[in-house]
């Protein structure tokens, strides 16, 4: 589902490449952690998958689409298949929970009756049924992240990317978010999560891809966070 082949990414302002000859593949329905210290290249890798950046060398594939070679016109189609959640939730402050999730469907032209049916289903999946009319500032951090996950998932993407989704949350809430991501993974969605939360990685024992200074130094199928080098 996700394939990086000898991918390198350099930014003009930096001497060291952000990603250096990275080759890694994540299969359909897999759940993988992307770990490493700040500056190791985790966010850059996720940005490449979303075509927010283009690789300097190598090929990036998402669902058999060569992401780097997509025309401008087809980038939105890629992004409809890849959901993403972030550390800062990125909700729209002046819209309700329902409207925030519905927004993701409205902007791709889904009809109203579809939205009215699908949004409540997803809100129930993330455990927010009954809070559809709340505004984001009325929710806890954990609830806001659930809304973000609902929005990322409502269009049933093939891949869900998570960039430090528990970064702003405490231990218990983080655990709940992880259970939610696992539930989503069980529906068949490939999940790739960048994090430097040792506890979560250790407790879930899933595939771990470790980056350091832009290179893959470890790729274990049931890994722990380990000692950072």
């Amino acid at each position, binding site marked *: 589902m996700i394939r990086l082949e000898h991918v390198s990414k350099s930014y003009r302002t930096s001497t060291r490449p952000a990603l250096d000859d990275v080759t890694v593949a994540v299969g359909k329905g897999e759940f993988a952690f992307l770990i490493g210290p700040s500056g190791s290249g985790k966010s850059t890798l996720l940005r490449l998958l*979303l075509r927010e950046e283009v690789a300097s060398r190598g090929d990036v594939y998402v669902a058999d689409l060569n992401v780097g070679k997509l025309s*401008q*016109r087809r*980038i*939105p*189609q*890629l*992004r*409809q*298949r890849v959901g*993403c959640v972030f550390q800062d939730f*990125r909700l*729209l*402050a002046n819209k309700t929970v329902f409207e925030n999730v519905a*927004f*993701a469907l*409205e*902007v*791709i*032209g889904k*009809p*109203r009756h579809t939205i009215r049916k699908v949004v409540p289903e997803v809100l129930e999946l993330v455990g927010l049924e009954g809070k559809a009319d709340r505004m984001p500032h009325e929710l806890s951090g954990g609830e806001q992240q659930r809304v973000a996950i609902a*929005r990322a998932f409502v*269009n049933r993407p093939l891949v869900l990317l998570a960039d430090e989704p528990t970064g702003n949350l405490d231990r218990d809430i983080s655990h709940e978010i992880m259970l939610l991501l696992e539930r989503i993974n069980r529906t068949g969605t490939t999940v790739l999560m960048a994090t430097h939360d040792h506890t979560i990685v250790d407790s879930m024992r899933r595939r771990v891809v470790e980056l350091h200074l832009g290179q893959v130094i470890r790729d274990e199928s049931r890994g722990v966070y380990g000692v950072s080098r």
Partner: protein
Amino acid sequence: MRASFVFSEVVTGLRRNVTMTVAMILTTAISLGLLGGGLLVVRTIDRMQQDYYQRVETVVYLSADISANDPGCTSSTCSALRGQLESAPGVQTVIFESRQAAFARFQRIFQGQPELLQLARPEALPASLRVQLSDPARFPSIAKAFTGRPGVDRVTDQGEYLRQLFRALDGLRNATFVIALIQALAALLLISNTIQISAFTRRAEVGVMRLTGASRWYTQLPFLLEAVVAGVVGGVLAIVGLIVGKVAFVDRVLAGVFEAAIVPRIGYGDIFSVAPILLLVGAVVAALTGYLTLRLYVRT
């Protein structure tokens, strides 16, 4: 594509930056109003030129001798001149005006100024052959051919006075367009600025739209429509302004000039024929500005 969604985004965008929206609409209205005014001036000048050049005459003023002694243009000199003029190429009609007839005309023109009439005498006015040219451009050759001939005092072209008048009117027209252009530049910059601010204010929404895979068209359309709305509303205001200007100002101040048929009256028909141009220019130019702004300054 859901029209109601796009519509609500446009309304939201316009409302969030009310001051900028109003400024944008007003400057657009002013420049379109000036454009409309310039176009109306052009129409009026064209009509005036048509009217006037039809009435303009080339005048062959006759010598003192003929003026005094030949009241019917029967002398050989005079009738020869008349015949040659009539047969010259480009000449439509030739009318002889005797000294007395000229004096009678003088009295008619200046009937409101009795002091002038008191001083005037027929002897001061020459007889003339008044020539209507079918092609005003033929004047130089007529003048060349007949100046200095026996019986001819001088040949003048009334059109020369008109040319001076029309040069001045052309100057007015050009000035109007130059000001319109400068205003248009201001309007375009303001539209561009407003769209950038609008995009900045809506960066959270635009960000989410990019993330969830909204097409570029869907993301940009609300901004483009904001600009087009400003262009069209500005155009409507400009048309209203022209109408108000006509009724409250032009009709009143130039009433005498219109009545004397010196300048053709500017009617509602003129304004309504210029109106579609203003609306079209307003909408298209605003949309282009919006599109360029989004391409150059806004990451969508």
